[in-house]
Protein backbone atom coordinates (compact mmCIF):
# COMPACT_ATOMS: atom_id res chain seq x y z
CA UNK A 1 0.00 0.00 0.00
CA UNK A 2 1.30 3.46 -0.86
CA UNK A 3 2.33 5.23 2.28
CA UNK A 4 1.00 8.71 2.56
CA UNK A 5 -1.85 9.43 0.23
CA UNK A 6 -4.51 7.85 -1.97
CA UNK A 7 -7.39 9.52 -3.80
CA UNK A 8 -9.95 6.83 -4.69
CA UNK A 9 -12.63 7.63 -7.27
CA UNK A 10 -15.43 5.53 -5.74
CA UNK A 11 -16.73 4.52 -2.33
CA UNK A 12 -15.80 0.88 -2.98
CA UNK A 13 -12.20 1.84 -3.71
CA UNK A 14 -12.12 4.11 -0.65
CA UNK A 15 -13.37 1.29 1.60
CA UNK A 16 -10.76 -1.08 0.15
CA UNK A 17 -8.00 1.45 0.74
CA UNK A 18 -9.14 1.97 4.33
CA UNK A 19 -9.40 -1.79 4.94
CA UNK A 20 -5.99 -2.45 3.44
CA UNK A 21 -4.35 0.22 5.57
CA UNK A 22 -5.97 -1.08 8.73
CA UNK A 23 -5.01 -4.66 7.89
CA UNK A 24 -1.39 -3.54 7.55
CA UNK A 25 -1.55 -1.89 10.96
CA UNK A 26 -1.35 1.65 9.60
CA UNK A 27 -3.12 4.65 11.05
CA UNK A 28 -5.68 5.54 8.38
CA UNK A 29 -7.00 9.08 8.15
CA UNK A 30 -9.96 9.85 5.91
CA UNK A 31 -9.79 13.37 4.48
CA UNK A 32 -12.84 15.20 3.23
CA UNK A 33 -13.03 19.01 3.07
CA UNK A 34 -9.86 19.36 5.13
CA UNK A 35 -11.13 22.32 7.15
CA UNK A 36 -10.52 20.54 10.45
CA UNK A 37 -7.74 18.18 9.49
CA UNK A 38 -5.51 20.58 7.53
CA UNK A 39 -5.55 23.02 10.46
CA UNK A 40 -4.67 20.31 12.96
CA UNK A 41 -1.94 19.01 10.73
CA UNK A 42 -0.46 22.39 9.98
CA UNK A 43 -0.27 23.26 13.67
CA UNK A 44 1.67 20.05 14.23
CA UNK A 45 5.18 19.91 12.73
CA UNK A 46 4.82 19.50 8.99
CA UNK A 47 6.65 16.36 7.90
CA UNK A 48 6.24 17.18 4.24
CA UNK A 49 8.26 20.37 4.50
CA UNK A 50 12.01 20.51 4.75
CA UNK A 51 13.36 22.48 7.73
CA UNK A 52 14.12 25.45 5.47
CA UNK A 53 10.44 25.68 4.66
CA UNK A 54 10.66 24.67 1.01
CA UNK A 55 8.05 22.20 -0.16
CA UNK A 56 9.57 18.77 -0.47
CA UNK A 57 9.30 17.44 -4.00
CA UNK A 58 10.22 13.93 -2.82
CA UNK A 59 7.77 11.44 -1.36
CA UNK A 60 7.24 12.18 2.32
CA UNK A 61 9.38 10.24 4.79
CA UNK A 62 7.53 7.50 6.67
CA UNK A 63 5.83 8.89 9.75
CA UNK A 64 5.68 7.44 13.23
CA UNK A 65 2.92 6.26 13.62
CA UNK A 66 2.46 5.16 10.01
CA UNK A 67 -0.09 7.30 8.30
CA UNK A 68 -2.29 6.83 5.26
CA UNK A 69 -4.56 9.58 4.11
CA UNK A 70 -7.58 8.39 2.13
CA UNK A 71 -8.79 11.50 0.36
CA UNK A 72 -12.56 11.32 -0.17
CA UNK A 73 -12.79 14.48 -2.28
CA UNK A 74 -13.24 12.53 -5.54
CA UNK A 75 -15.89 10.13 -4.21
CA UNK A 76 -19.10 11.43 -5.78
CA UNK A 77 -21.30 8.91 -3.92
CA UNK A 78 -20.55 10.79 -0.71
CA UNK A 79 -22.08 13.98 -2.10
CA UNK A 80 -25.52 12.52 -2.80
CA UNK A 81 -28.83 14.07 -1.76
CA UNK A 82 -31.45 11.31 -2.09
CA UNK A 83 -35.04 10.75 -1.05
CA UNK A 84 -36.20 7.45 0.46
CA UNK A 85 -39.61 6.22 1.53
CA UNK A 86 -39.66 5.19 5.18
CA UNK A 87 -42.19 3.85 7.67
CA UNK A 88 -45.75 5.00 7.13
CA UNK A 89 -44.86 6.34 3.70
CA UNK A 90 -42.91 9.24 5.20
CA UNK A 91 -40.19 10.76 3.05
CA UNK A 92 -36.66 10.52 4.42
CA UNK A 93 -33.65 12.36 3.05
CA UNK A 94 -30.24 10.77 2.82
CA UNK A 95 -27.25 13.09 2.65
CA UNK A 96 -23.82 11.70 1.81
CA UNK A 97 -21.11 12.39 4.38
CA UNK A 98 -19.39 14.63 1.82
CA UNK A 99 -22.31 17.06 1.46
CA UNK A 100 -21.00 20.58 2.11
CA UNK A 101 -22.55 23.52 3.96
CA UNK A 102 -22.66 25.26 0.61
CA UNK A 103 -24.96 22.50 -0.72
CA UNK A 104 -27.20 22.83 2.34
CA UNK A 105 -27.60 26.53 1.51
CA UNK A 106 -28.12 26.08 -2.23
CA UNK A 107 -29.92 22.79 -2.88
CA UNK A 108 -33.49 23.86 -3.76
CA UNK A 109 -35.21 20.87 -2.12
CA UNK A 110 -33.16 21.13 1.07
CA UNK A 111 -33.60 24.88 1.30
CA UNK A 112 -37.36 24.49 0.97
CA UNK A 113 -37.88 21.53 3.29
CA UNK A 114 -35.05 22.01 5.78
CA UNK A 115 -34.46 25.72 6.35
CA UNK A 116 -32.87 24.79 9.68
CA UNK A 117 -29.96 23.22 7.75
CA UNK A 118 -29.48 26.34 5.63
CA UNK A 119 -29.73 28.55 8.72
CA UNK A 120 -27.03 26.52 10.48
CA UNK A 121 -24.82 26.27 7.37
CA UNK A 122 -24.90 30.01 6.73
CA UNK A 123 -23.35 30.54 10.18
CA UNK A 124 -20.49 28.05 9.79
CA UNK A 125 -17.21 29.90 9.29
CA UNK A 126 -17.61 32.00 6.16
CA UNK A 127 -18.30 31.13 2.52
CA UNK A 128 -14.81 29.70 1.97
CA UNK A 129 -15.26 27.22 4.84
CA UNK A 130 -18.83 26.45 3.74
CA UNK A 131 -17.57 25.46 0.29
CA UNK A 132 -15.15 22.87 1.69
CA UNK A 133 -16.53 21.73 5.05
CA UNK A 134 -18.79 18.68 5.14
CA UNK A 135 -21.34 17.08 7.44
CA UNK A 136 -19.25 13.91 7.66
CA UNK A 137 -16.19 15.89 8.74
CA UNK A 138 -18.26 17.78 11.30
CA UNK A 139 -19.60 14.53 12.78
CA UNK A 140 -16.27 12.70 12.64
CA UNK A 141 -14.25 15.47 14.28
CA UNK A 142 -16.65 15.15 17.19
CA UNK A 143 -16.06 18.61 18.59
CA UNK A 144 -18.64 19.46 21.28
CA UNK A 145 -18.90 22.85 19.51
CA UNK A 146 -19.85 21.34 16.13
CA UNK A 147 -22.87 23.14 14.66
CA UNK A 148 -24.03 20.49 12.20
CA UNK A 149 -24.35 17.76 14.83
CA UNK A 150 -27.05 19.33 17.06
CA UNK A 151 -29.14 20.24 14.02
CA UNK A 152 -28.95 16.68 12.70
CA UNK A 153 -29.83 15.30 16.14
CA UNK A 154 -32.85 17.66 16.31
CA UNK A 155 -33.93 16.32 12.91
CA UNK A 156 -33.76 12.78 14.27
CA UNK A 157 -30.88 11.78 12.02
CA UNK A 158 -29.40 8.33 11.86
CA UNK A 159 -25.81 7.90 10.75
CA UNK A 160 -24.57 5.11 8.48
CA UNK A 161 -21.12 3.62 8.98
CA UNK A 162 -19.79 1.51 6.17
CA UNK A 163 -16.87 -0.86 5.80
CA UNK A 164 -16.03 -3.56 3.29
CA UNK A 165 -17.87 -5.98 5.63
CA UNK A 166 -21.14 -4.06 5.42
CA UNK A 167 -23.04 -1.13 6.87
CA UNK A 168 -24.63 -0.29 10.19
CA UNK A 169 -26.90 2.58 11.13
CA UNK A 170 -27.68 4.20 14.47
CA UNK A 171 -29.19 7.37 15.89
CA UNK A 172 -26.56 10.11 15.68
CA UNK A 173 -26.73 10.72 19.44
CA UNK A 174 -25.63 7.10 20.00
CA UNK A 175 -22.59 7.59 17.75
CA UNK A 176 -20.59 9.41 20.42
CA UNK A 177 -19.19 7.62 23.45
CA UNK A 178 -17.34 10.57 25.01
CA UNK A 179 -15.27 13.64 24.27
CA UNK A 180 -14.17 13.18 20.64
CA UNK A 181 -14.84 9.43 20.97
CA UNK A 182 -17.22 7.41 18.89
CA UNK A 183 -18.29 3.88 18.03
CA UNK A 184 -16.65 4.14 14.59
CA UNK A 185 -14.11 1.39 13.91
CA UNK A 186 -10.90 2.22 12.08
CA UNK A 187 -12.04 0.35 8.97
CA UNK A 188 -15.36 2.22 8.76
CA UNK A 189 -16.22 5.42 6.97
CA UNK A 190 -19.12 7.68 7.74
CA UNK A 191 -21.17 7.14 4.63
CA UNK A 192 -24.34 9.18 5.09
CA UNK A 193 -26.97 10.57 7.43
CA UNK A 194 -30.69 10.05 6.96
CA UNK A 195 -33.62 11.88 8.55
CA UNK A 196 -37.36 12.30 7.92
CA UNK A 197 -39.15 15.30 6.47
CA UNK A 198 -40.75 17.37 9.22
CA UNK A 199 -44.23 16.39 10.32
CA UNK A 200 -47.10 18.79 9.82
CA UNK A 201 -47.22 21.20 12.75
CA UNK A 202 -43.47 21.02 13.38
CA UNK A 203 -41.50 24.14 14.22
CA UNK A 204 -37.75 24.40 13.98
CA UNK A 205 -35.43 26.62 15.95
CA UNK A 206 -31.71 27.33 15.54
CA UNK A 207 -29.75 29.80 17.56
CA UNK A 208 -25.97 30.03 17.68
CA UNK A 209 -24.25 32.35 20.09
CA UNK A 210 -20.66 33.18 19.13
CA UNK A 211 -18.34 36.13 19.55
CA UNK A 212 -19.07 37.56 16.13
CA UNK A 213 -21.18 36.71 13.11
CA UNK A 214 -18.61 34.95 10.96
CA UNK A 215 -15.73 32.57 11.74
CA UNK A 216 -16.71 32.02 15.35
CA UNK A 217 -16.99 28.83 17.36
CA UNK A 218 -20.29 28.37 19.17
CA UNK A 219 -20.30 29.38 22.82
CA UNK A 220 -23.71 27.77 22.93
CA UNK A 221 -25.96 26.63 20.09
CA UNK A 222 -29.45 25.17 20.34
CA UNK A 223 -31.25 23.25 17.63
CA UNK A 224 -34.75 21.95 18.07
CA UNK A 225 -37.69 20.51 16.16
CA UNK A 226 -40.92 20.64 18.13
CA UNK A 227 -44.30 19.37 16.95
CA UNK A 228 -47.42 21.08 18.24
CA UNK A 229 -51.00 19.90 17.99
CA UNK A 230 -53.54 22.46 19.06
CA UNK A 231 -50.79 24.32 20.91
CA UNK A 232 -49.72 21.21 22.85
CA UNK A 233 -46.27 19.66 22.36
CA UNK A 234 -46.66 16.17 20.91
CA UNK A 235 -43.03 15.58 19.96
CA UNK A 236 -39.76 17.38 20.59
CA UNK A 237 -36.11 16.89 19.85
CA UNK A 238 -33.60 19.35 21.23
CA UNK A 239 -29.80 19.34 21.09
CA UNK A 240 -27.22 21.79 22.35
CA UNK A 241 -23.59 22.37 21.35
CA UNK A 242 -20.69 23.44 23.59
CA UNK A 243 -22.34 22.57 26.90
CA UNK A 244 -21.13 18.98 27.44
CA UNK A 245 -18.30 16.67 26.29
CA UNK A 246 -20.45 15.65 23.32
CA UNK A 247 -23.60 17.09 21.80
CA UNK A 248 -26.18 17.36 24.60
CA UNK A 249 -29.62 15.89 23.90
CA UNK A 250 -31.98 17.81 26.13
CA UNK A 251 -34.06 14.83 27.25
CA UNK A 252 -35.15 16.42 30.53
CA UNK A 253 -36.32 19.53 28.72
CA UNK A 254 -38.15 17.34 26.24
CA UNK A 255 -39.94 15.52 29.08
CA UNK A 256 -40.90 18.87 30.64
CA UNK A 257 -42.43 20.05 27.36
CA UNK A 258 -44.22 16.90 26.17
CA UNK A 259 -47.98 17.05 26.55
CA UNK A 260 -47.82 20.70 27.67
CA UNK A 261 -48.44 24.08 26.16
CA UNK A 262 -44.89 25.55 26.02
CA UNK A 263 -45.98 28.84 27.57
CA UNK A 264 -47.60 26.95 30.47
CA UNK A 265 -44.40 25.16 31.54
CA UNK A 266 -43.01 27.15 34.49
CA UNK A 267 -39.66 28.80 33.75
CA UNK A 268 -38.18 27.23 36.89
CA UNK A 269 -39.15 23.71 35.81
CA UNK A 270 -37.70 24.24 32.34
CA UNK A 271 -34.39 25.59 33.64
CA UNK A 272 -34.06 22.87 36.28
CA UNK A 273 -34.54 20.30 33.52
CA UNK A 274 -31.92 22.08 31.40
CA UNK A 275 -29.37 22.07 34.22
CA UNK A 276 -29.85 18.32 34.52
CA UNK A 277 -29.24 17.86 30.79
CA UNK A 278 -26.02 19.83 30.36
CA UNK A 279 -22.59 20.05 31.98
CA UNK A 280 -20.89 23.17 30.68
CA UNK A 281 -17.24 23.75 31.53
CA UNK A 282 -15.14 26.86 31.83
CA UNK A 283 -12.25 27.13 29.37
CA UNK A 284 -10.20 29.69 27.48
CA UNK A 285 -13.29 30.88 25.61
CA UNK A 286 -15.91 31.28 28.33
CA UNK A 287 -16.61 30.60 31.97
CA UNK A 288 -18.96 27.86 33.08
CA UNK A 289 -21.41 30.41 34.51
CA UNK A 290 -21.51 32.38 31.28
CA UNK A 291 -22.26 29.27 29.23
CA UNK A 292 -24.99 28.22 31.64
CA UNK A 293 -26.54 31.66 31.52
CA UNK A 294 -26.50 31.77 27.73
CA UNK A 295 -27.91 28.24 27.51
CA UNK A 296 -30.82 29.30 29.73
CA UNK A 297 -31.54 32.46 27.76
CA UNK A 298 -31.45 30.60 24.46
CA UNK A 299 -33.85 27.93 25.75
CA UNK A 300 -36.30 30.58 26.98
CA UNK A 301 -35.99 32.34 23.63
CA UNK A 302 -36.95 29.09 21.93
CA UNK A 303 -40.00 28.72 24.14
CA UNK A 304 -41.07 32.24 23.23
CA UNK A 305 -40.60 31.47 19.54
CA UNK A 306 -42.91 28.47 19.89
CA UNK A 307 -45.66 30.79 21.06
CA UNK A 308 -45.40 33.03 17.97
Amino acid sequence: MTHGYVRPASLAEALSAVAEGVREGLKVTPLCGGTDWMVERHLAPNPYKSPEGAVDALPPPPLPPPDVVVDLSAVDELRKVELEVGEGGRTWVRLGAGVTYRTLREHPYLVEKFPILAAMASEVGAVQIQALGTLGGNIATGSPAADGVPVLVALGARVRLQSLEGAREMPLEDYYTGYRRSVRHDDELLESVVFPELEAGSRWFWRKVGTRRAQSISKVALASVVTLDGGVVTAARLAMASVAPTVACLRGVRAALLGQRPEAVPEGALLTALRGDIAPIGDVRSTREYRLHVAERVLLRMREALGD
Partner: protein
Amino acid sequence: MTTVTVNGIPREVSSGPLSRLLDVLREELGLTGTKEGCGEGECGSCTVLLDGVPVNACLVAVGQCDGRRVTTVEGLQEGPDLTPLARCLIDGGGAQCGICTPGMLVSASHLLARNPSPDEAQVREALAGNLCRCTGYQRIVDSVLEASRLLRARREGASP
Protein backbone atom coordinates in the same frame (compact mmCIF):
# COMPACT_ATOMS: atom_id res chain seq x y z
CA MET B 1 2.06 13.72 -10.05
CA THR B 2 -0.81 16.15 -9.66
CA THR B 3 -2.15 18.11 -12.62
CA VAL B 4 -3.94 21.34 -11.83
CA THR B 5 -5.22 23.92 -14.27
CA VAL B 6 -4.01 27.17 -12.75
CA ASN B 7 -5.38 30.37 -14.29
CA GLY B 8 -6.27 28.42 -17.42
CA ILE B 9 -2.91 26.68 -17.87
CA PRO B 10 -2.47 22.98 -16.99
CA ARG B 11 0.43 22.65 -14.55
CA GLU B 12 2.20 19.51 -13.38
CA VAL B 13 2.90 19.78 -9.68
CA SER B 14 5.75 17.82 -8.13
CA SER B 15 5.13 18.79 -4.48
CA GLY B 16 3.64 15.97 -2.40
CA PRO B 17 -0.15 15.61 -2.59
CA LEU B 18 -0.60 16.74 1.02
CA SER B 19 1.27 19.99 0.44
CA ARG B 20 -0.98 22.95 0.94
CA LEU B 21 -2.26 24.46 -2.30
CA LEU B 22 -1.09 27.79 -0.85
CA ASP B 23 2.56 26.64 -0.69
CA VAL B 24 2.44 25.07 -4.13
CA LEU B 25 1.08 28.28 -5.68
CA ARG B 26 3.61 30.51 -3.98
CA GLU B 27 6.72 28.36 -3.83
CA GLU B 28 6.51 25.88 -6.69
CA LEU B 29 4.54 27.91 -9.24
CA GLY B 30 5.84 31.34 -8.21
CA LEU B 31 2.37 32.85 -7.93
CA THR B 32 2.99 35.00 -4.89
CA GLY B 33 -0.18 37.06 -5.21
CA THR B 34 -1.92 34.60 -2.90
CA LYS B 35 -0.94 35.54 0.67
CA GLU B 36 -0.65 33.62 3.92
CA GLY B 37 -2.14 35.45 6.88
CA CYS B 38 -3.09 32.87 9.48
CA GLY B 39 -2.64 29.45 7.90
CA GLU B 40 -5.77 28.31 9.75
CA GLY B 41 -8.67 29.19 7.46
CA GLU B 42 -9.63 32.28 9.44
CA CYS B 43 -8.33 35.29 7.54
CA GLY B 44 -9.07 34.65 3.86
CA SER B 45 -5.87 36.25 2.55
CA CYS B 46 -5.16 32.95 0.75
CA THR B 47 -8.57 32.86 -0.99
CA VAL B 48 -8.53 31.32 -4.48
CA LEU B 49 -11.27 29.88 -6.68
CA LEU B 50 -11.40 26.08 -6.87
CA ASP B 51 -13.62 25.09 -9.80
CA GLY B 52 -14.94 28.64 -9.62
CA VAL B 53 -15.75 28.65 -5.90
CA PRO B 54 -13.84 30.63 -3.23
CA VAL B 55 -11.86 28.44 -0.81
CA ASN B 56 -8.93 28.96 1.56
CA ALA B 57 -5.78 27.68 -0.20
CA CYS B 58 -4.20 27.02 3.20
CA LEU B 59 -6.82 24.33 3.89
CA VAL B 60 -6.64 22.52 0.55
CA ALA B 61 -4.19 19.69 -0.05
CA VAL B 62 -2.91 20.01 -3.61
CA GLY B 63 -3.72 16.35 -4.29
CA GLN B 64 -7.38 17.30 -3.92
CA CYS B 65 -7.00 19.66 -6.88
CA ASP B 66 -5.95 16.98 -9.36
CA GLY B 67 -7.85 17.54 -12.60
CA ARG B 68 -9.50 20.69 -11.25
CA ARG B 69 -9.30 24.44 -11.98
CA VAL B 70 -7.70 26.96 -9.66
CA THR B 71 -7.94 30.71 -10.21
CA THR B 72 -5.66 33.01 -8.23
CA VAL B 73 -5.64 36.79 -8.02
CA GLU B 74 -3.19 36.79 -10.95
CA GLY B 75 -5.85 35.02 -13.01
CA LEU B 76 -8.40 37.80 -12.48
CA GLN B 77 -6.30 40.14 -14.59
CA GLU B 78 -7.88 40.68 -18.03
CA GLY B 79 -5.17 42.72 -19.68
CA PRO B 80 -2.34 45.08 -18.79
CA ASP B 81 -4.66 47.47 -16.92
CA LEU B 82 -6.00 47.12 -13.41
CA THR B 83 -9.46 45.57 -13.29
CA PRO B 84 -12.26 48.00 -12.40
CA LEU B 85 -12.56 46.26 -9.02
CA ALA B 86 -8.87 46.73 -8.23
CA ARG B 87 -9.04 50.35 -9.42
CA CYS B 88 -12.02 51.01 -7.13
CA LEU B 89 -10.26 49.45 -4.13
CA ILE B 90 -7.22 51.67 -4.67
CA ASP B 91 -9.19 54.84 -5.33
CA GLY B 92 -11.59 54.18 -2.46
CA GLY B 93 -8.92 53.49 0.16
CA GLY B 94 -9.98 49.86 0.30
CA ALA B 95 -6.39 48.67 -0.06
CA GLN B 96 -3.92 49.91 2.53
CA CYS B 97 -1.12 47.56 3.63
CA GLY B 98 -2.36 45.19 0.93
CA ILE B 99 -2.04 41.83 2.67
CA CYS B 100 -5.76 41.14 2.57
CA THR B 101 -6.22 42.65 -0.88
CA PRO B 102 -5.64 39.61 -3.14
CA GLY B 103 -8.13 37.57 -1.11
CA MET B 104 -10.60 40.46 -1.11
CA LEU B 105 -10.27 40.73 -4.90
CA VAL B 106 -10.93 37.02 -5.39
CA SER B 107 -13.94 36.95 -3.04
CA ALA B 108 -15.40 40.18 -4.36
CA SER B 109 -14.94 39.32 -8.02
CA HIS B 110 -16.68 35.98 -7.40
CA LEU B 111 -19.58 37.83 -5.80
CA LEU B 112 -19.87 40.32 -8.67
CA ALA B 113 -19.76 37.53 -11.24
CA ARG B 114 -22.69 35.80 -9.52
CA ASN B 115 -24.58 38.88 -8.47
CA PRO B 116 -23.89 42.06 -10.47
CA SER B 117 -26.06 44.21 -8.16
CA PRO B 118 -25.29 43.18 -4.58
CA ASP B 119 -26.54 45.22 -1.66
CA GLU B 120 -24.28 46.12 1.25
CA ALA B 121 -25.36 43.11 3.34
CA GLN B 122 -24.54 40.75 0.47
CA VAL B 123 -21.11 42.31 0.04
CA ARG B 124 -20.45 41.98 3.76
CA GLU B 125 -21.48 38.33 3.75
CA ALA B 126 -19.34 37.51 0.72
CA LEU B 127 -16.35 39.15 2.44
CA ALA B 128 -17.04 37.87 5.97
CA GLY B 129 -14.25 35.31 5.58
CA ASN B 130 -11.71 37.98 4.57
CA LEU B 131 -10.20 39.83 7.50
CA CYS B 132 -8.53 43.24 7.22
CA ARG B 133 -6.63 44.98 9.99
CA CYS B 134 -6.24 48.29 8.20
CA THR B 135 -9.33 49.66 6.53
CA GLY B 136 -12.13 49.08 9.01
CA TYR B 137 -13.99 47.32 6.15
CA GLN B 138 -16.32 50.20 5.24
CA ARG B 139 -13.95 51.43 2.53
CA ILE B 140 -13.66 47.93 1.11
CA VAL B 141 -17.43 47.45 1.06
CA ASP B 142 -17.92 50.87 -0.53
CA SER B 143 -15.25 50.11 -3.14
CA VAL B 144 -16.95 46.85 -4.11
CA LEU B 145 -20.32 48.58 -4.39
CA GLU B 146 -18.71 51.29 -6.52
CA ALA B 147 -17.14 48.62 -8.76
CA SER B 148 -20.51 46.94 -9.18
CA ARG B 149 -22.03 50.24 -10.36
CA LEU B 150 -19.15 50.82 -12.72
CA LEU B 151 -19.33 47.33 -14.20
CA ARG B 152 -23.10 47.60 -14.66
CA ALA B 153 -22.79 50.96 -16.35
CA ARG B 154 -20.09 49.59 -18.60
CA ARG B 155 -22.24 46.57 -19.54
CA GLU B 156 -25.27 48.73 -20.25
CA GLY B 157 -23.08 51.08 -22.29
CA ALA B 158 -21.79 48.14 -24.34
CA SER B 159 -25.26 46.81 -25.19
CA PRO B 160 -27.67 49.72 -25.32
